């Protein structure tokens, strides 16, 4: 398949397949995004997301992009792409890896027009990153999927186990949690949000047995994560599940969930 040609023009206009669509058959992909982060000296770091129509719109590159050349071997924890000084994979947790890209001295870049740049991005994302992620998934020997954060791609297990804190929450049932238990839950969520570990929260939201959770527990889950709901694929569905559960309990869901949408 020629990945480059359809992306030489603006993919929005062409309606060409996005990265999400391209690899969606293989993996679950969240929204995709890139961010440029200035670093010391002339080095720039790019967190890599992938939806090319979004990439087109972001206009993040202050200078032209140099084509990616050879790719060295990598391990689970590290991937080097030579010449462009790019990319390593980073183990965030035992079963989670993410990618970011560091571009070297901008003065050394070859000049590229926007369309060429787009094509290079397409090539890079699809031919290299995708292949490498697939290889990593293969190496890990598990069923993994992409999880795209604000600022990185993560690869995660497709069928992960429920997090400990979620199990703990269920264990309490509908009993009113103590203040300490509430604080503990909020701190666990806070820590995950700070680390950008949205996948674990998504996992909890999609696997929690909410009929076993107190009203306060449900409120804490939703209110603490509300600010990052756009990063959580399951947040809206979880909100609706909670609404249904509250109704089932004969509570005024609108009042409990006031301000949340």
């Amino acid at each position, binding site marked *: 398949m020629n990945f480059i040609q359809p992306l030489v023009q603006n993919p929005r206009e062409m309606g060409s397949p996005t990265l999400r669509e391209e690899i969606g058959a293989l993996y679950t992909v969240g929204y995709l995004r890139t961010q440029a982060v200035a670093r010391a000296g002339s080095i720039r770091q790019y967190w890599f997301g992938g939806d090319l129509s979004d990439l087109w719109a972001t206009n993040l590159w202050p200078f032209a992009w140099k084509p990616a050349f050879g790719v060295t071997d990598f391990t689970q924890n590290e991937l080097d792409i030579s010449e462009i000084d790019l990319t390593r994979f980073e183990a965030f947790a035992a079963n989670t890896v993410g990618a970011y890209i560091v571009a070297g001295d901008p003065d050394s870049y070859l000049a590229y027009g926007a369309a060429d740049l787009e094509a290079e991005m397409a090539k890079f994302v699809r031919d290299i990153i995708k292949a490498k992620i697939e290889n990593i998934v293969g190496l890990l020997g598990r069923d993994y999927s992409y999880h795209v954060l604000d600022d990185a791609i993560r690869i995660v297990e497709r069928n992960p186990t429920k997090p400990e804190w979620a199990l703990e929450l269920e264990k309490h049932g509908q009993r009113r949690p*103590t*203040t300490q238990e*509430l*604080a503990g839950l*909020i*701190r666990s*969520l*806070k820590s995950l*949000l*700070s680390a950008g570990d949205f996948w674990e929260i998504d996992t909890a939201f999609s696997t929690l047995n909410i009929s076993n959770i*107190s*009203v*306060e527990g449900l*409120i*804490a889950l939703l*209110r*603490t*994560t*509300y*600010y*990052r709901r756009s990063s959580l694929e399951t947040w809206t569905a979880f909100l609706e599940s909670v609404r249904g559960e509250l109704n089932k309990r004969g*509570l*005024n869901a609108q*009042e*409990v969930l*006031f*301000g*949340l949408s």
Partner: protein
Amino acid sequence: MPFQSSSTRPYSDLDTVGIAIRWDPSHDQLHIGVLHRLDDDVQLCHLKFHHLLRRGPPDDGYFWADCAMFSGGIERSSNGRVFAVLISETARNPNIPYGFAFDENCFANDGTYRPMEIGKGLTCASFVIALFHSHGYPFLKLESWRLRPEDIAWQNKILDLLRRYATAEHVNAAAAYVGQFRYRPEEVAGAAVRAPPPLDFDESVNLATDILATIGATGTA
């Protein structure tokens, strides 16, 4: 629930979350904070001034009322219990800048303050707004607010005070925001305790009149 003096109604009567307000003679203005209960412990979280977010047992002399949105049935009190914990988490960082313009969602839902650009900051009243709104409890229709000429005089007075405590960079940048809408403590107090929220400018101003009468203050400086 009307505002009552702590000498009439002790803070221990607080349900989950409430608003406390009092006249501060040393600065010739009203001051507002958020009362919240963690088990038997009632605390006041309030922005005293630049980089002075404080949380501790409330002093005597405040007039206070429960927030109706957090008081009553399990739907409201459950939210109040969770919000009280979130408030206590917010207070871990005292370094909230003082200023006249602010971002409504400057607190993440985990209670973490998200720094705004230099010059922006909160007042004791807009701290209360930001705290509630950031956590998904909007009680004011901010877009309905109006500028009043006397608010500019107040902002200039505060700017002079700010020069003693904040960096020149912050003060100079804050000066650019003189003329922003001011959310007065008594207006914020009135709206925050009412349910159902949110209230607009006119409703809040009406409620503020009653609060000023209760407190015995003639107006806000």
